[in-house]
């Protein structure tokens, strides 16, 4: 990797008046821009909607000059308050959401997008005819048509999140079990530094020497010095800045939650699609499902793309919503189902039988049976199963949203904890014990393949909320003690800041602060994310 200092690109300023703005002193700002899916409430003076890099640079320079600061807002589906402003301005990226084009390099095909394109839009685009889309090199679309279709493997459950948000939080999804988090698929980023200059970083081209890297801007040299901790790469992890010796510069910005720069362009790598069988297998109880998963992970012959879990309470939640007339387009979990595991298994039409045959013995061993399952391989059916999975967090978020009227300070309380394989049973036991002892109700679902199910407390009032908060703190401590991460995919934002000292101690946090200050001396970007300003 290059040891040359990285040169930032100056972007010209444009007239300030041309930037779309909502002024909070004149109109009341819509609440949706002042919160996110954590339901944390924020406040701001004004909201800007830049439509290109020049407008964004103009804004950042203005904020630096005037002592202002801004929170970057994507689609606000984050669940840790990252996009929730605590004063200052909001810079909403929604006008930068276009496809730039399809491209190709030695490693394969990629798509270049503006940051606020949603995952859903990207997926829709990837189902179109590629030659009808803009291309970065002539003929790429036609080539891709001949070899396609292609897909982007990272699949955070919330498809309305922006890709910029995904990069900022290093999001992952069910398929990260096989394909890793967003980080592994980012080929290149354009990042606007807090001073309004741009870094154009292609993976593999710029790195740290040890823990140091120099960025040369038009009128300054920024010495980037990484904290002395090593980011835990042994488990799924999105807690704090990624950092290890000799790392790629691009990785500093992925998962930095908008604290070091604004992402303005993203290249994401694509993969050729292949046929997949989606299977939901039902078990009599939670223990059986978990022992099935443990054995499945040891199997050398069965290689799922994802392994997701639904405990009895999670299935009960879906049954309850359906009984009240909700989720009409989703099937109801059968009455015999006490828990379920969701798998995606690669299988072409000709190997469907052999693939299904291969998991039968394991199913039976753990009290399941091939009759007690759902099995789909058409696109719509598979999407329906994903919606079924997604309906759980969505229902919980709506439920918590509904409590806000009476309890304005309430927000959802759930875990985002991952631990190493060996520690998983202990962690699961700890969740149950702790929550039971506090008299709370909860559901457990999600990324069990990565030892990362979400445990969501079903809150009713502030009393539950306080108890749940204590429990979640205890879970974070336990996770760290077991070598895991208290924030595996949602990031730290403003709600989980207290986890960083657990992981990096006060020394690491001070070094984080220092790195932030070297890039953003005036604190114009995302104050309060990861650390207090």
């Amino acid at each position, binding site marked *: 990797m290059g040891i040359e200092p990285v040169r930032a690109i100056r972007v010209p300023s444009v007239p300030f008046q041309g930037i779309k703005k909502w002024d909070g002193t004149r109109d009341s700002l819509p609440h949706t821009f002042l919160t996110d899916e954590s339901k944390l409430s924020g406040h701001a003076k004004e909201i800007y909607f830049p439509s290109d890099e020049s407008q964004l640079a103009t804004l950042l320079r203005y904020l630096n000059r005037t002592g202002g600061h801004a929170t970057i807002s994507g689609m606000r589906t984050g669940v840790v308050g990252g996009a929730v402003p605590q004063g200052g301005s909001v810079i909403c990226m929604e006008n930068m959401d276009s496809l730039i084009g399809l491209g190709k390099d030695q490693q394969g095909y990629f798509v270049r997008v503006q940051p606020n394109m949603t995952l859903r839009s990207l997926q829709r685009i990837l189902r179109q005819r590629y030659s009808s889309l803009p291309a970065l090199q002539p003929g790429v679309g036609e080539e891709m048509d001949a070899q396609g279709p292609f897909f982007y493997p990272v699949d955070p459950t919330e498809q309305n999140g922006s890709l910029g948000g995904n990069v900022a939080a290093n999001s992952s999804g069910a398929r990260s079990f096989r394909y890793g988090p967003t980080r592994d698929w980012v080929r290149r980023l354009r990042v606007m530094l807090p001073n309004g200059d741009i870094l154009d970083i292609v993976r593999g081209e710029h790195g740290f020497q040890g823990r140091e890297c120099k960025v040369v801007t038009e009128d300054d040299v920024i010495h980037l010095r990484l904290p002395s901790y090593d980011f835990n790469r042994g488990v799924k992890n999105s807690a704090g800045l990624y950092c290890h010796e000799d790392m790629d510069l691009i990785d500093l910005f992925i998962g930095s939650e908008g604290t070091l720069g604004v992402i303005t362009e993203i290249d994401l790598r694509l993969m050729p699609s292949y046929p997949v069988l989606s299977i939901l297998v039902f078990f009599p109880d939670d223990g059986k499902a978990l022992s099935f998963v443990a054995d499945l992970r040891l199997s050398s012959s069965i290689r799922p793309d994802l392994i997701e879990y639904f405990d009895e309470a999670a299935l009960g939640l879906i049954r309850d919503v359906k009984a009240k007339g909700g989720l009409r387009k*989703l099937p109801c979990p059968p009455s015999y189902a006490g828990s379920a595991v969701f798998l995606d298994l690669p299988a072409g039409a000709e190997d469907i039988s052999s693939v299904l045959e291969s998991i039968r013995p394991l199913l039976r061993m753990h009290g399941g049976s091939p009759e007690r399952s759902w099995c789909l391989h058409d696109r719509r059916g598979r999407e329906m199963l994903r919606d079924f999975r997604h309906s759980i967090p969505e229902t919980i978020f709506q439920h918590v949203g509904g409590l806000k009227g009476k309890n304005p300070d309430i927000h959802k309380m759930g875990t985002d904890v991952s631990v190493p394989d060996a520690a998983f049973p202990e962690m699961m036991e700890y969740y149950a014990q702790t929550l039971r002892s506090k008299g709370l109700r909860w559901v457990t679902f999600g990324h069990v393949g990565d030892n990362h199910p979400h445990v969501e407390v079903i809150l009713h009032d502030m009393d539950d909320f306080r108890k749940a908060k204590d429990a979640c703190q205890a879970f974070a401590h336990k996770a760290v003690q077991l070598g895991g991460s208290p924030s595996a995919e949602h990031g730290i934002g403003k709600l989980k800041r207290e986890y960083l000292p657990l992981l990096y101690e006060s020394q690491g946090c001070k070094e984080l602060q220092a790195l932030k200050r070297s890039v953003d001396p005036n604190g114009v970007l995302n104050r309060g994310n990861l650390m207090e300003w």
Partner: protein
Amino acid sequence: MKIVVMVKQVPDAENVELDPQTGNIRRDGAERMLNPYCEFALQAAVSLREEGDVVVVVTMGPRSAEEALRYCLERGADRAYLLTDKDFAGSDAWATATVLSRFLQLHEPDHDIVLTGRQAIDGDTGQVPAELAVISGLEPFYHVRSVSKQDGMWRVTQDYGDEVRELMIAGSCVLSIASGSLEPKVPSMVDVQEAQGKPLKVLDRESLDLKKSEAGLAGSRTRVVKIVNQVHTRASQKLQGTPAEMADGILQAGGWI
């Protein structure tokens, strides 16, 4: 008892691209699905079936339509026929009905009932059920919401929106099924695996004893001359003033808000 279900594979409704020149749906490379009304017909067939009955699904279409048949086999159908031939390409409703009718006559003459979807969401004519019935000497019934067996006859509910009719029908007939459950019927691993082994027979023009002039474009009685995509725009208009003035405003706008 033998229940025959006529189904069609259509472009995935969420994913259609229109050819800007012809206004036609682009079929090359487009994703496909079972026509939703045909899914209702299949549901009706499966709910009718009792021990010993057979549900036969049939489609006329390109080779890829086999996916739609497998889909039905995974959801309760017992066997399937794919009627496919390059000479079937371009069939209008009449030519399609001719092919389906000949199939019934030659391959499943002992059917007890024939179910179809109300219309295919790509062509949208809704004529095939009636024409199939006419050519086959059967009676068609439209707007069917449900069907059951009672005293050796079919008890059929037709839903006309403002009126619901209950009929008793003797003998085989063609039912055009208009509604069903939106809650999907999800197959199990066993259903999917068993479907792999269920018979799926492919028949061409010759095996249906059809002349070239009877099917495809040659056998069609209609030509689509032109398709224009209509764009409906909605505009909102803010009315201000006293209630009476606003009421006048509504009348001036043609009585519509």
